[in-house]
């Protein structure tokens, strides 16, 4: 079953042999990730799937992550579906996404009930005011780090600003902004015969 290929030394983690991974194992591994990934799922995914389990290698991981980011849906659940599919087809995807979602969903179910009962308490209101402000800072930091990684061209910032203005100032619906600005940006990045390397 497992053929041993000589791998180039540059790769950090070699491609795992196509091992038989049971549905149960997939579910459990994603359940652990779903229950422990405080503050963002991606690093936990890599640590678990690439480093610990070696179900996928680094190259696959990066590729799957870029697919996850281009598609609608959260990185966490898209990654679960992609990895689950690779390991065990449709059932694998279902097991992975269930494991990924259950702990957080249970927690927020309880938190929602608690907040409904005690949300008016002055302590809770004060606490939540701080939490919300911190969350704004967190989203801004995501914007900054994503921009550094994903925006290669000066014009990308124009598209980004246009999207913000369309939604916040012109009050376009999100799909309208996504389609209009998205198509313009895709056309701007259209395939060219001679790729200009200067933008890099």
């Amino acid at each position: 079953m497992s053929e041993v290929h000589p791998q180039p030394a540059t790769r950090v983690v070699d491609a795992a042999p196509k091992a038989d991974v049971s549905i149960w194992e997939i579910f459990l591994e994603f359940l652990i990730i779903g229950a422990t990934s405080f503050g963002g799922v991606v690093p936990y995914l890599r640590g678990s799937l690439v480093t610990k389990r070696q179900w996928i290698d680094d190259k696959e991981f990066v590729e799957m992550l870029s697919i996850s980011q281009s598609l609608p849906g959260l990185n966490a659940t898209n990654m679960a579906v992609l990895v689950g599919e690779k390991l065990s087809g449709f059932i694998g995807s279902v097991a992975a996404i269930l494991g990924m979602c259950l702990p957080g969903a249970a927690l927020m179910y309880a938190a929602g009930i608690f907040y409904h009962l005690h949300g008016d308490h002055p302590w809770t209101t004060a606490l939540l005011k701080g939490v919300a402000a911190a969350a704004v800072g967190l989203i801004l930091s995501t914007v900054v780090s994503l921009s550094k990684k994903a925006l290669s061209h000066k014009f990308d910032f124009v598209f980004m600003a246009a999207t913000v203005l369309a939604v916040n100032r012109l009050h376009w619906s999100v799909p309208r902004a996504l389609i209009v600005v998205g198509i313009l940006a895709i056309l701007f990045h259209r395939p060219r015969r001679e790729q200009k390397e200067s933008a890099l």
Partner: protein
Amino acid sequence: MSQLPALVRVFAYLSLLTVGGGMAAFPEMKILTVEVHKWLTFSQLIHLYSVGQMAPGPNMMMIVSIGEWAGGFLGALVTLVAFFGPTALLAFVVARFWKRLEKWPWRNSIQQGLAPVSIGLLLAGCFTMAKGAITGLETAAIAVGVLLMLLQYKINPALLVLAGAIIGAFSFTSK
């Protein structure tokens, strides 16, 4: 009970807007859940979203709380499936044929073109939320503090949100 079909429609629709992250759907989520269906208030939406940042797993699990408020346990369940089902199915289908598109030159164009738009949507969501969450100098200071800390140090964001909770509890209770 009658809220279930509305929950399915709203969250299945919102699910398709989460390009680049859950925050991309936030402006639309505000309109639909607060203004149209009145399942919760804007400040409750902000609170739930923020608390959700401290939970492990996908960072939009606060939708479960909205589902629970609007339709009890069934509401929560239905919301969860509606919000994650459509995009999961899409990811599954794409996983099957994405490899074959590797040679298709537009694949790269789509990825490169969607990146700035999805970041823009994220930022737009952030501004929508900031309108409700940043109410004065103190809250602005917390937000900027968290931003700078995250850009400067490798620190778990959930811890900073927790720190925000503690600072909030001590500085805003007196008012």
